[in-house]
């Protein structure tokens, strides 16, 4: 049973603990007098971040957790504050006394520590990596995030879905279409409506376009991190072409605000020409890059995650599929009828993740041809019924899980689990056989989101 998420709800008189697995959702009452949560992190190691997050947000205690350090609350955060409690309403807090964070390290003769971040050398998001090194070899890595924590879950409480929409589409810029589709799905459940198939196809088209843009950027940056710059020049041109196509269709280069109840204007001939050209270019790219031995010397066997570990850590997305775990939310009749084929590799290394990305680009291009239509469809919005809604979407990074409780038309609790939140926790086990110079390459091959993880 694959573990998906674990979170808490403040129900005034008690807490409700929700644990989401692939096949079932378990709910448990936790009294406020004795706010203890028994850990499940021994069976599902990636549950530990969820539990540490609960601890910071609600002030509960984790029982038997192998790690009970603060997660969201950094050194200068006022430690007695638990902001997700309903009675916490402050909009401003002050930095408190600096309380050092104890990193997970390996000590020993001539073992030393390397601290990287939160501000990195390239143009990337902030996050911290703490290495225990024996010479060049990485003995251990601790990933520490939540520098970008914007408290989006708290921000959205008490808002209507309409008010929440512009915020939800800006949770993670690279996955904005996926987040919007998850929200629309929840809208439809609350309205008791179904999306007309033509409109559903248009949304799926944009989701695949987003995936193509993201993967194209990655297949440029991954070789670039191995010192092969011409791949970046080539692929970043293609990514820019695709980004411009997104601009043409949605009027925004990332597609902010493009997913709604009304269809967009698709210029079929132009898009077909674009798909044909891109198809040829990506085939050329694959043919060329597969033939560069020095590059594959760096890719193969680097950053290996075997299937057992991938399943144990409940990995999702490209990371899981490159290790041979078949996890993909698109595995359903709608996608399969339109030509979906799950990309899969078994070696679980940087090379495997690179190949999965190329395969997915080609598969997405095929599906986009089938999704393409310019039928004008519109559905009217209806009043929303109260209830607890969940939805899943396969973004370019992996499975997004979104849960919204609506009460009196307002959001009572908003929870979202970005695929990165899970995959970040598996990053350290990919480092076991490699040297520190491989880290940027391994990190880029997973290309995880910081903004989506930190919320």
């Amino acid at each position, binding site marked *: 049973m694959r573990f998906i998420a674990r979170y808490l709800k403040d129900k005034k008189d008690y807490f409700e603990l929700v644990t989401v697995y692939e096949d079932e959702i378990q709910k448990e009452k936790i009294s406020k007098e004795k706010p203890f949560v028994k850990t499940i992190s021994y069976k599902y190691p990636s549950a530990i971040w969820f539990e540490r997050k609960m601890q910071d947000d609600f002030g509960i205690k984790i029982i038997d957790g192998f790690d009970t350090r603060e997660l*969201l609350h*950094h050194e*200068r*955060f006022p430690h007695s*504050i638990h*902001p997700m409690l309903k009675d916490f309403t*402050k*909009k*401003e*807090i002050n*930095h408190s006394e600096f309380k050092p964070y104890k990193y997970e390290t390996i000590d020993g003769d001539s073992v030393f520590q390397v601290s990287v971040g*939160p*501000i990195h*050398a*390239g*143009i*990337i*998001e*902030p996050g911290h990596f703490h290495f225990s090194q024996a010479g060049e070899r990485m003995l251990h890595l601790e990933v520490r995030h*939540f*520098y*970008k*924590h*914007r*408290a*989006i879950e*708290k*921000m959205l409480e008490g808002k209507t879905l309409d008010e929440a929409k*512009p*915020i939800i589409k*800006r*949770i*993670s*810029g*690279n996955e*904005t279409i996926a987040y919007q589709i998850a929200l629309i799905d929840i809208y439809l459940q609350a309205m008791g409506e179904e999306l007309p198939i033509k409109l559903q196809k248009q949304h799926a088209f944009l989701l695949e376009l987003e995936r193509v843009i993201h993967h194209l*950027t990655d297949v440029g940056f991954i070789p670039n991190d191995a010192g092969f710059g*011409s791949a970046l*020049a*080539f692929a*970043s*041109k293609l*990514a*820019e072409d695709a*980004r411009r196509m997104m601009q043409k269709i949605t009027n925004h*280069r*990332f597609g*902010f605000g493009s997913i709604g109840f009304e269809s967009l204007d698709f210029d079929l001939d132009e898009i077909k020409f674009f798909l044909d050209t891109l198809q040829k270019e990506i085939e*050329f790219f694959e*043919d*060329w890059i597969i033939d*560069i031995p020095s590059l594959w010397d760096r890719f193969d066997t680097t950053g290996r995650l075997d299937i057992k570990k991938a399943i144990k850590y409940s990995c999702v997305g490209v990371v899981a599929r490159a290790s041979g775990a078949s996890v993909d939310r698109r595995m359903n009749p709608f996608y399969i009828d339109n030509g979906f084929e799950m990309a899969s590799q078994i070696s679980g290394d940087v090379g495997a993740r690179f190949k999965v990305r190329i395969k997915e680009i080609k598969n997405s291009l095929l599906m986009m041809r089938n999704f393409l239509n310019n039928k004008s469809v519109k559905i009217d919005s209806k009043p929303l019924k109260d209830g607890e809604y969940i939805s899943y979407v396969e973004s370019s990074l992996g499975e997004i899980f979104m849960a919204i409780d609506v009460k009196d038309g307002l959001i009572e609790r908003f929870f979202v689990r970005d695929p990165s939140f899970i995959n970040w926790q598996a990053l350290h086990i990919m480092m076991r056989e490699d040297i520190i110079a491989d880290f940027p390459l391994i990190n880029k091959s997973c290309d995880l*989101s*910081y*903004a989506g993880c930190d919320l």
Partner: protein
Amino acid sequence: MIRYWTKRFSNDILTENIELEDELKEIQKEIKSHINKKFAGSLAIRMVDSGSCNACEAECNALSNPYYDLERFGIYFVASPRHADVMLLSGLMTFNMQPHVLDAYEQLPNPKWVISMGDCPLMKAPFEKTYAITAPAKQHLPIAHHINGCPPTPLEIIKGILEFLRKFASNS
């Protein structure tokens, strides 16, 4: 590789907005003395994300693709704040990130400037104020110039940087 180079030559030059180079030459003429004194001929930028959605970073990365090729202007993104003239700031200045942003600013050698980009540092993006957000950024840092947009397109970023340089011309 031969196939690659054949393709490379048949693609020719993709770089767009060549007219901006002339514009930069004009600006260079106007602020020549400043450029030599303050920037030693080129402009080094350190990008700092203080809590964005990653769209601003994606657009900054796009600046180095063949269409925009930012470096032809002599404008570089550098790896350390200690090498930079300008800090390019995006994001909401989160509570957890704010001390680190100030640390990075401290590390910039004088004279130094901050350019903010996107709606977030102005607190004009749809995000609402929470305990975890300390934007607007001007409460913490002196902002010399702002580039609008959510996110600004690569072309808008280039134009914004040139506009920032032009400020020196009008001040001299």
